[in-house]
C-alpha cells in the first residue's frame, strides 16, 4: 500500500470515527439548546456588535500591552505594543445561510490577516456545512481566543508555539451538535483543509516550528488535511474536547508528479474546562508528530508537546459603586512546552499570576507576572520574568 493510500485511509478512518462518535445515542436528541453558543466566545458569540440594515452585525476588539521583561537579570524588553485591532462581522443572510468574518491587524499593523471568513449553510442543528477561511477546531483555545475573553495577556505557550493559534486555513466541512439530557450536549466539527506547508521546516530557524507552516492559502500538494474536534459538555461551563489534525506538510507531488516522499503532520489535542467552587479551570494538552526528512533528523524535532492549565476566580463584583457591573479576577497559569521531546533540552516552563479588573464584561485591564525557565538544546537554563499590563475591549 502506498503512503498516499495509507494517508487516505487514515483520513477516512478519522472522519468515520468522528461521525460515529457523534452519532446520537438513545438519550440524545438532535435539537440542542439554541440559545447556547456553539463555542463560548467563538465566531457567532461576539458581544457589542452593531447592526447595519437589519441583518449585518459588525464589531471588533482591541488590545494594548505594556511589557517589561527580564532575562537572566538583564532587561530584555520594556516597551509598548499595539497588539491587536480586530474587526469582525456576521450576516444572517437567511434562515439557512449565514456568514462571518474577522480581519486582524496585529503588532501595530505590521501583520494584516484575514483570520476568518466562512459561510455556513445550516441544514439542521446536527448538520451545518461550512466553507471558507476557517478557524481550525484544534483545541478549544483556537476557537475562542479573543483577548477580552482571555484572563492572561499572553496566550499559552502551547497555543502560540506548538499549535499556532490563531490557526485559520481554507477549508470545507461540517459541524453540528446534539443535546444529551436536559443540559448536556455534544458538538462536533470536521473539515478538509489545505493543511500546513513546508515553512514549518524551510522557514524555521529554530528547528521545527509548526506555526511557520500556517497560511497555506494555496494548496501545494493536492492532498487535503483533515482537522476535527469532538466536545462533550454535560452542562454549561463544563466541557471536554478532543481534536486532531492530520495531513501532509510537504509538496510531495506537483501536478501529479511524485517529487518527494509524503511527510505528515499529526497533532492531537485534549482540552477541557470546568468550574469548581467558583474557580474556573481550563486547559489544553497537545502532542504533535512531524515526519521529518532523515537529513534533518537531530536538528529538527519530530515530536513536540505542550500543555497549560489556567485557574481564575472572580471576586469583588460591584465593589466599585460607580461601576456596578465591575468585577475583579485572580488568576494563575502553569504552562510548559517541549519543542523536541527527543532532545535533552529545548523546552520552556513558566508560571503566571495576576489580577484583572473588568469594568464591564466586555473590557478588561490585566496585570500579569510571569516567571519562566527556558532550556536550550543543551539543556542550559535561562531565567526570564515578565511584568505585563494590558487593556483589551470589545467594541
Amino acid at each position: 500500500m502506498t503512503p498516499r493510500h495509507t494517508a487516505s485511509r487514515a483520513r477516512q478512518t478519522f472522519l468515520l470515527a468522528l461521525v460515529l462518535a457523534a452519532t446520537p445515542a438513545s438519550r440524545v436528541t438532535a435539537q440542542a439548546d439554541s440559545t447556547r453558543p456553539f463555542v463560548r466566545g467563538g465566531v457567532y458569540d461576539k458581544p457589542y456588535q452593531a447592526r447595519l440594515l437589519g441583518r449585518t452585525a459588525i464589531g471588533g476588539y482591541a488590545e494594548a500591552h505594556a511589557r517589561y521583561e527580564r532575562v537572566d537579570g538583564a532587561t530584555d524588553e520594556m516597551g509598548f505594543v499595539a497588539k491587536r485591532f480586530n474587526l469582525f462581522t456576521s450576516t444572517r443572510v437567511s434562515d439557512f445561510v449565514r456568514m462571518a468574518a474577522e480581519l486582524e491587524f496585529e503588532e501595530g499593523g505590521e501583520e494584516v490577516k484575514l483570520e476568518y471568513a466562512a459561510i455556513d449553510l445550516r441544514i439542521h442543528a446536527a448538520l451545518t456545512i461550512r466553507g471558507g477561511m476557517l478557524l481550525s477546531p484544534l483545541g478549544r483555545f483556537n476557537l475562542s481566543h479573543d483577548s477580552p475573553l482571555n484572563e492572561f495577556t499572553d496566550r499559552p505557550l502551547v497555543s502560540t508555539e506548538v499549535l499556532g493559534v490563531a490557526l485559520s486555513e481554507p477549508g470545507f466541512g461540517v459541524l453540528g451538535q446534539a443535546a444529551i439530557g436536559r443540559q448536556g450536549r455534544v458538538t462536533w466539527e470536521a473539515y478538509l483543509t489545505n493543511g500546513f506547508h513546508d515553512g514549518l521546516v524551510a522557514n524555521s530557524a529554530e528547528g521545527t516550528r509548526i506555526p511557520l507552516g500556517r497560511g497555506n492559502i494555496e494548496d501545494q500538494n493536492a492532498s487535503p488535511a483533515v482537522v476535527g474536534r469532538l466536545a462533550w459538555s454535560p452542562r454549561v461551563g463544563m466541557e471536554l474536547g478532543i481534536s486532531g489534525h492530520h495531513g501532509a506538510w510537504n509538496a510531495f507531488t506537483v501536478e501529479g508528479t511524485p517529487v518527494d516522499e509524503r511527510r505528515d503532520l499529526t497533532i492531537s489535542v485534549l482540552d477541557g474546562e470546568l468550574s469548581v467552587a467558583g474557580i474556573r479551570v481550563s486547559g489544553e494538552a497537545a502532542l504533535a508528530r512531524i515526519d521529518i526528512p532523515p537529513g534533518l533528523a537531530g536538528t529538527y524535532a519530530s515530536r513536540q508537546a505542550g500543555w497549560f492549565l489556567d485557574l481564575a476566580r472572580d471576586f469583588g463584583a460591584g465593589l466599585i459603586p460607580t461601576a456596578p457591573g465591575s468585577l475583579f479576577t485572580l488568576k494563575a497559569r502553569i504552562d510548559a512546552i517541549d519543542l523536541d521531546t527527543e532532545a535533552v533540552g529545548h523546552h520552556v516552563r513558566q508560571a503566571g499570576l495576576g489580577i484583572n479588573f473588568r469594568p464591564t464584561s466586555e473590557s478588561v485591564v490585566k496585570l500579569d507576572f510571569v516567571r519562566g525557565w527556558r532550556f536550550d538544546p543543551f539543556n542550559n537554563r535561562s531565567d526570564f520574568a515578565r511584568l505585563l499590563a494590558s487593556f483589551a475591549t470589545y467594541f
Partner: protein
Amino acid sequence: MGMPNLFRGLSGIPVGLALLLQAGCSDLLTSTPDSGDQLDSPLEGLSATERAAFVRGDEEFARRFSPATGLGPIFNDVSCAACHSADGRGRPGNALSRIGTPDEDMLRSWGGPQIQNRAIPGALAEVVPAGVHVSVRLPPPVFAAGLIEAIPEATIIANADPDDLDGDGISGRVNWVVPPPWVPGTEPGAGPEPRVGRFGRKAQTTSILQQTVEAYLQDMGITTDFLPDENRNPLAGHAHDAADRIGDPEVPAGTVFAVVNYLRLLAPPAPGGPTAARALGEQLFAATGCAACHVPQLQTGPHPIGALAHQGVTLYSDLLLHDMGDALADHRPDGDADGREWRTTPLWGLRMIRAYLNGDAFLLHDGRARTIEEAILLHGGEAQRSRDLFAGLSPADRAALLDFVGSR
C-alpha cells in the same frame, strides 16, 4: 459599605504577593549569573564601540539558519551556537567526522575531509564510507579566542623543542600552516608565508577568520564572500543541486567579521578560588610534568584592542603539537601534524564543563573521557611519563591534582 464576603476572603492574597515581591524581587525578576561562571561574557575593559561589536557578533553567532536562509544543502548543524554549548564544548551528538589523508586527497570524492551528516529537503546527506578511518572531533570551546590570537608567534615558538634538546622527553613543535589566500592580510595569522597554527584540535588553523569561514561552509553549508561556492555531496547527483535555492554568497563579509569580532572579544571563565588542596594540586601539576605542555600562562603582545594587549593568558597550553601516543592517535595527518599529534588542549573552563553539558563531561578530542582522571590516564607518547607519575600518586595527592585541574 461592607466588604463582600468573597472579596474579604481573598484580600490577603495581593498583600502576600506584594510581600513576596519585596522579599525576593531579584529572584522573582531573575538575577544575573556571575560573569566568571559564564562562557559567553565579553572581556573586561572594552570600549562602548567594542561592546557594540560584541553584541552584534553575539547575535550572528546565535543566528540559526534554515533552508530559506541558506542552510545546506549539506550541513552538520544550524548555527554556531548549536554546536558550542553556551560557547563552550560540544557533546558527542555534535561531533564532526573527519576522513581522509593528504595521500588520499582527503577522500574528497567520498565527502571528505569532513562528513556533513545532514541535508536540507531535496539534498542528500553524506555518510561515512565503509571501511574508512574516521577521526571524531568534538566542538571545542570558543571563548577567549582573541586572547589566544593575541599571543605573539615568537612566544609560542619559544616553547617549542622539536628535537627535545633539553632531554625532558617532551618535544612540542609548531604546526606551520600556509593561510588560505582569501584571508585578508589585515587579519592576524594571514599572509603568504607559513604561520603558526594555533586554532583547532591539531593547530591546523592560523586565524579566527579562517576558522569562522570554514565553519560557516563546512558545518552549516553557508557560503560567504570568502568561500562563495557551496559544499556539495560529491556522491549526490546534479538533481540535488537544486535543493539550495538561495543565491551565493549567503552571508556577506560583514557578518563574518561580526562573528570574528565576537569570538575575539569573548572572555575566559574565571578559575575557581584558591584552597589548600588546590595549592598542593598546582605543585603536583608542575612536579609531574603536566605543566611542561599545559603551560599555565602565556603573554599577549601589543594589540589594537586594549583589553587584549599585554595580558597574561592562563590557558594551560603551549599551543604546540605533541605526540600523544597510540591510545589517542587518530592516524590522520592535518597540515604539518601527524596522526599521533594533537595541540595541547587548554584547560581553562574545565570548572564549568559539566554546568554547560547537562552534567556530563566529554573530554579529549572525541569526548571519550568522562572524567579528568580518565583523560589523564589516556595520555601517552610525550605525556607518558607525566601520566605514569600521576598514576603513582597517593590517592590524596591525586585528588588534589584533579581538584586543581578541575578548578581551572
